[in-house]
């Protein structure tokens, strides 16, 4: 991940909630060392000290736990290691189930308590594995774009137009509306061709007048996204280079497909067209329309142009 990602999307920059897998790794380490170094006391504690097999099974479990600990603490492929812990838990629960059936009295009570504890740990392991996996996949889906356009206006004019976030739908094709809640926060609604809508709240996290604006979605949104636009004087007195960096991480499933539709098959082309529209609005006052492309620039429309003749009254 680049530095920009770190600034823009901290929740994606560290997609793995690292504390939970590490804690589970330490638990594995403790269990593994215990089972290897002191199998006798562990067998007594868990109520299986009467079983001759326990003396060989417990060190084997200990070795397995040390393996999980090494994997989880290494920080690599945390999702796989978290799932390996879940598999180990399943094995332990099976063994404990059989042990429970054979025992009575104090030993049965201890085996039952152990089973309960392992069941609890299993729940935590499953949670960790699912969360770690989801974050990893979101990270893999993260889309980054870096696109620029030169506008024949001063950096101050370009900044002023963009800083009023409610102007964004005038040139960003997929946005239905942006409502500024206050100077920093805004509510965004995007809509796609088949009536799909995605809404989120965003905040400006850095604002350098006439130079740059950085914003990101608030935590909790289902489509984490962020952007930064810089307004750099173009060399040779040719206006302003408007340089945009965008990041977004569409979720999996139906919502993810809806988001993908919003951006079309070529998200970069769409953003490039957004910037072309931004240039048109700043330089000519509005989005330029033709009979073949009555809504102005749009990749989708370019693929399915209407004939270049005046629109029927119903389409005006």
């Amino acid at each position, binding site marked *: 991940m680049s530095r920009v990602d770190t600034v823009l999307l901290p929740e994606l920059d560290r997609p793995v909630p690292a504390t939970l897998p590490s804690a589970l790794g330490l638990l594995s380490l403790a269990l593994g060392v215990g089972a290897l170094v002191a199998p006798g006391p562990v067998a007594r504690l868990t109520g299986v000290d009467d079983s001759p097999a326990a003396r060989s099974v417990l060190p084997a479990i200990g070795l397995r736990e040390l393996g999980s600990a090494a994997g989880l603490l290494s920080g690599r492929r945390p999702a796989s290691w978290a799932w390996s812990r879940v598999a180990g838990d399943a094995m332990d629960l099976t063994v404990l189930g059989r042990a429970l059936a054979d025992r009575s009295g104090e030993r049965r009570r201890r085996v039952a308590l152990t089973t309960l504890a392992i069941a609890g740990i299993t729940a935590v392991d499953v949670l960790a594995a699912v969360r770690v996996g989801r974050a990893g996949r979101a990270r893999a889906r993260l889309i980054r774009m870096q696109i620029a356009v030169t506008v024949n206006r001063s950096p101050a004019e370009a900044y002023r137009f963009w800083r009023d976030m409610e102007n964004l739908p005038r040139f960003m094709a997929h946005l239905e509306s942006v409502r500024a809640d206050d100077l920093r926060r805004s509510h965004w609604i995007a809509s796609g061709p088949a009536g799909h809508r995605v809404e989120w709240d965003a905040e400006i996290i850095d604002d350098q007048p006439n130079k740059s604006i950085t914003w990101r979605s608030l935590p909790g949104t289902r489509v984490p996204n962020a952007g930064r636009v810089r307004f750099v004087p173009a060399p040779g007195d040719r206006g302003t280079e408007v340089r945009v960096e965008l990041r977004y991480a569409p979720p999996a499933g139906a919502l993810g497909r809806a988001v993908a539709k919003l951006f079309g098959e070529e998200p970069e082309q769409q953003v*490039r067209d957004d910037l072309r529209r931004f240039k048109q609005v700043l330089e*000519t*006052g*509005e989005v330029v329309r033709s009979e*073949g*492309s*009555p809504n102005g620039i749009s*990749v989708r429309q370019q693929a399915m142009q209407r004939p270049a003749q005046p*629109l029927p009254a119903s389409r005006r």
Partner: protein
Amino acid sequence: MKATAWMGADSVKVIDVPDPKIMNSRDAIVRISTTAICGSDLHLYHGYIPAMRKGDILGHEFMGEVVEVGPQVRNLAPGDRVVVPFPIACGHCSSCQRGLYSVCENSNPNAGIAEKIMGHSPAGIFGYSHLLGGYAGGQAEYARVPFADVGPVKVPDEISDDQAVMLADVFPTGYMGAEMCDIKPGQVIAVWGAGPVGLLAAASARLLGAERVIVIDRFPYRLRLAEEHIDAETINYEETDVLDALNEMTAGRGPDACIDAVGMEGHHANAAMYAYDRAKQAARVETERPFALRQAILACRSGGVVSVVGAYGGFVDKFPMGAFMNRSLVMRTGQCHVQRYTRPLLERIQRGEIDPSFIVSHRMPLRDAPKGYKIFQKKQDDCTKVLLKV
């Protein structure tokens, strides 16, 4: 309203379509009085320009009366008689401000597709494919004119429609072709193509002080126009070897500048040479038949200028780069930046320095547009330029 629509290769029809309405605040609606068929419309007619759609209204040379203006148009009012430049240009981007109107950065809503083919997008053009904007053209009763505060020029009463409509494209295009030659006293200018643009390029070379003007074509009636109206020398390339003739005429130097006013659908005296590029063009391996361009490069005096105003759409094969490089040639080209030339050329017409309407051979009503295309395509009835009267 009635409008001339492209209906597929070699087919145009006059059809009924809705009347145009203001779509942008800098639009005007013009009731057309005279419109013309351009040689480059024949490239569309033949189906060589990509991104055409059945029903597209053709025509980029037109003039008429303003009937409605958008809220941001303050220089025009209903009733004004105007001629409209063919490139659509916003007037505010950095290209427009440098006078490069035909590469306006804002007027092509389909810039995305144009970029994929050309690297960057040129300006939108009326009735000239979706690659160049998808704008309805002007071979119709009415047209919507975007950026009406920049393009259209008011025409004084003493200038006729036939003269004024030449300012939409062919006269400025020919003039720019001559201007790009950077003509100095004593210079010899050769022009490939005696169509409207070639004839007006030759006439403009005269206006700009060329000592001699040589026009190359294969139709005697067109070469006769060049001789009679421009006092040009002529070469019929089907009868004479062009390179030999030019060397002979310039005592071995070659013309100081060569203007290609032919473009993508050239012809060649040698049937085999013609067949080579024609076959590649038919197979879409090559999009152009650049005979005139190749010959202009070989003919040009070392250190001279090759000025290209004939229209090209895609890719050229067998470009004589060795000759071009080793003989220090310069190429200048571009779709005409018409907005730069309309007023000065209008003044030249007013002063009587030139009457560009000498190229007009046919005048017919709009409803006969299909016939106009046919005779222009076939060069029947000594056709040089067809005007459609609305």
